């Protein structure tokens, strides 16, 4: 039944694409589709609380080449599929005001969602790759048509980075397929095949980097801030919320599972690093601190969130590379948590503020007393900000704590670095919060009454926050709170899956 998430999304996308303009309401249709998919994912999650590996569909597709249409779900997939459902519903609620070419907008949006569902459910690598690349083109068009700041540049950069990353992935997959005898693309069979160690040592970094580009691994992250800033609100919510997770999920599910020995120690040491695992963990830790530092000095509100995504995704990668059950579970939990919180942050900045104030520059935002004009936006941002900086009670805290514990077992120095990143995270979140919402005093009193004359009309110009926005923001906040208060609801299925056969070789540190 879970397969219908894909069919419904893609079907509705095709329907909207060919629907005559002016007939029906595309946003309602899109919302119904997204809600139906969310319901399907929740039912699947409910029916499988233990996170067992369950096959959804398994049919021969191109038998001559050993390619199957194989959809399945285990705990990790289920968590991410639920995240996709939530992000899709929230994204549509926050694009309720899209009027220009609305049919196409929602068609592309749903096509992207359909591709994402497909990636999380595929257990045949060819199918996985098809869905993975399917997501590139809708992203490009969403940004280049409905985007804002430097949209053509941001869109092209995003598309090319994604495509180059998937080219690296395809090289690794093709080589693995041919080396294993060219008769199957099934993930489990290939993972059991046991490739020769020298092969794994070059194929692992290739595929891992290919996926990590989309996960925002430093120094391949540069598409992320520009892409997020250029994208329309719903697209940046999806980009940060689920698309970056595609990359992280690929790293965990494909690169690491397929080539566990690629993580093992080299016979030599280079600049203090002695395995690909340490190399990538170091890059992830650098990304955490670097992203946070850059976020600290931005003037554009959306860039702050964009760089904070790079920082938070560093935790995801660091956690999975720790190869410790807690760290890896924290990594998946962080994917979920960041998906919810980054979506909320982008919604506040892109939809609630930018669509009304038409600026995201901290200097110009001073002119609007946002705290008084948009109290709901202020409230949402404060909640999301505190949650994402790791306040206990919200999902971010549990996730990052587990990642840190896992990382402490594997790389103590990097865990400390990540801890520094959290502190800087507090700094940039509070600083952005202050500059955008609570910064009313610094403007020196001008001679004459100019200040009140310019500020007061602005206050009245801003439309109040609409109902769909409130529902969307409320949904995301409640989910984050529930997961923060009762993380076992997600952790149990995740941990169960991580102890399954696929991940066995990994938990032994990649050593056979």
């Amino acid at each position: 039944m879970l397969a219908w998430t894909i069919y419904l999304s893609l079907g509705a996308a095709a329907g909207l694409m060919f629907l005559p303009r002016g007939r029906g309401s595309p946003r309602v249709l899109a919302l119904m589709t997204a809600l139906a998919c969310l319901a399907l994912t929740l039912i699947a999650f409910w029916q499988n609380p233990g996170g067992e590996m369950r096959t959804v569909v398994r049919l021969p597709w191109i038998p001559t080449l050993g390619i199957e249409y194989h959809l399945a779900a285990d705990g990790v997939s289920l968590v991410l599929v639920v995240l996709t459902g939530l992000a899709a519903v929230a994204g549509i609620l926050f694009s309720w005001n899209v009027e220009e070419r609305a049919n196409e907008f929602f068609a592309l949006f749903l096509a992207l969602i359909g591709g994402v569902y497909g990636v999380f459910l595929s257990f045949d690598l060819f199918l996985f790759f098809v869905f993975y690349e399917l997501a590139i083109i809708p992203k490009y068009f969403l940004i280049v048509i409905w985007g804002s700041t430097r949209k053509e540049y941001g869109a092209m950069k995003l598309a090319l980075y994604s495509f180059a990353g998937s080219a690296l992935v395809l090289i690794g997959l093709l080589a693995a397929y041919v080396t294993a005898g060219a008769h199957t693309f099934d993930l489990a069979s290939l993972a059991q095949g046991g490739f020769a160690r020298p092969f794994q040592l070059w194929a692992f970094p290739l595929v891992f980097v290919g996926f990590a580009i989309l996960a925002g691994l430093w120094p391949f992250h540069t598409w992320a801030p520009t892409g997020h800033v250029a994208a329309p609100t719903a697209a940046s919510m999806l980009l940060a919320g689920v698309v970056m997770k595609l990359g992280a999920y690929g790293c965990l599910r494909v690169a690491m599972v397929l080539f566990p020995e690629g993580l093992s120690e080299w016979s030599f040491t280079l600049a203090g690093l002695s395995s690909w695992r340490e190399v990538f963990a170091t890059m992830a830790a650098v990304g955490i601190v670097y992203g946070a530092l850059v976020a600290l000095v931005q003037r554009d509100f959306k860039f702050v969130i964009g760089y904070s995504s790079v920082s938070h995704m560093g935790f995801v990668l660091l956690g999975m590379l720790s190869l410790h059950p807690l760290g890896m579970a924290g990594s998946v939990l962080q994917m979920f948590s960041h998906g919810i919180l980054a979506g909320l942050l982008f919604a506040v900045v892109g939809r609630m503020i930018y669509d009304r104030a038409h600026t995201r520059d901290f200097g110009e935002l001073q002119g609007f007393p946002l705290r008084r004009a948009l109290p709901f936006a202020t409230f949402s941002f404060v909640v999301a900000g505190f949650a994402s900086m790791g306040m206990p009670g919200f999902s971010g805290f549990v996730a990052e704590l587990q990642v840190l514990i896992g990382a402490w077992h594997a790389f103590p120095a990097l865990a400390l670095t990540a801890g520094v990143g959290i502190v800087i995270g507090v700094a940039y979140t509070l600083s952005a919060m202050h500059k955008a919402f609570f910064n009313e005093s610094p403007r020196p009193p001008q001679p004459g009454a100019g200040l009140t004359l310019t500020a007061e009309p602005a206050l009245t110009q801003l439309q109040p926050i609409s109902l769909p926005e409130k529902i969307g923001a409320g949904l995301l906040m409640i989910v984050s709170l529930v997961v923060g208060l009762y993380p076992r609801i997600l952790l149990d299925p995740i941990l169960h899956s991580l102890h399954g056969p696929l991940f066995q070789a990994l938990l032994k540190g990649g050593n056979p």
Partner: protein
Amino acid sequence: MSTASYLELLHWSLPEMALVLTALVVLGADLVGLREAAPRHRFLAGALISTLGAGVAMVLLLLQTGEANWMNGIFVSDSLIRITQVSLLVLGMFTFLISSQSDFTRHPPEYFCLLLLALTGLLFMVCTENFLVIFVSLELASMCLYVLAAFNKGDPRSTEAGLKYFLFGGLSTAFTLFGISLMYGISGHLDLRQISAALQAARPDPLMVPAMVMLLVGFGFKVAFVPFHLWAPETYQGAPAPSAAMIASGSKLASFFVLAKVLLMGLSAGGGLDFPNLNSGWVPVIALAAAASMILGNLAALAQTSVRRLLAFSAIAHGGYVLLGILAQNGLGVGAMLYYLLVYGLTIIGAFAVIARVERATGSDDFHAFAGLRHRSPLLSFCMAVFLLSLAGIPPLAGFFGKFYLFAAALNTGTGRLEWLWLVILALLTSAVSLYYYLRVLKQIYARPTGGQTPCGMEISLESLAIVALAGAVVLLGCAPEWLVDRLVQAAPFLKLH
């Protein structure tokens, strides 16, 4: 030599006969009934008759079963060859259909007659293993294509296209003929299998080097791999759109097939010769040509502002990918190559049909002519998006599966050593570059405002139907490639390699 049974030849070459007869019917019908009709109707009638003729030929072809080998390889037929011929006929039919709305000449029947004769040449080219017949049929096809490229007499660019194509093509013919004569001198045979056997039996001959170089130069011009690609941009830009589509699709498919046959059958690499290993000397040369084509084609396409020129350079890059299928040196590689070329042909015919339509409305194929096309014709824009994204290799379109199949075949040489990994890496990375220029065109179509230009809607016509059918075929072949792949895999052993 036993006496030849011409009746048998007649039986096996019925499809080609049908095409030649259709060419006469097109001329005759126009002479008898349509001389006074409007050019539009004459084009339509020509396209219909030609498509019908190609359809008859296809039916005759599909009715054939079994294998034939007439007079030591002068005429051969087996299921791999028949798949290739059916592909050629499909590409030809779509070329006829997209010509149906053209207006570039006052002589439509001659135009279709030449298209049909070119198609006949291509069909004969793939069903022989004899160098002389290859040469003669190659010339039949080429002569027609030279004229077709220059058919728009009113446009100097078309004349330039035809002249340039003719001069380069003529030169390449001279090289090919010289190579064939040297090869005959060395081995004493014209038949590919006998040549191969003779070469393996004899001591390595230094004359092999010039012979092989001549042959590679000759075919290199035909399929336009670097450094023999210079004619392509101007020919693609100046020729009437359907002619360019024929040159880019059918002619390319047949030429690559023959190139693969000559290299793999006649100059088979596994000749058991040690260093200097003259027999396998073409492998590194082809590998380098493939690498150069991918790099130069993709990089040069970045700088183009004319969509036709962009497609010309991308065709050079695609030629580079296709060479990977030959480098695999087995039947599966050739099968993957055929799949890729068929899909590529369908895509490029569709793209040229869209270009033709935009050109008729705006008089230009520059980027700005495509600006805001989406507002003028959503369906046409959607089809163009399908074609371009398929060329870039985005799933679930056929271009993606073609690339995947081709690269998997190139890696799977059976030795388990992944010899061509470096070339596959290069191919995938350069195809990441190619996404940039395809998206540039799509950006014009979808994201730019329309410049108040003349509308180019999609009225119900044969051409529109062909465009939509092509887009549908590209999607379908990408989502359900199994039936074709299965056939190709089953037919692959017919390429009896040593």
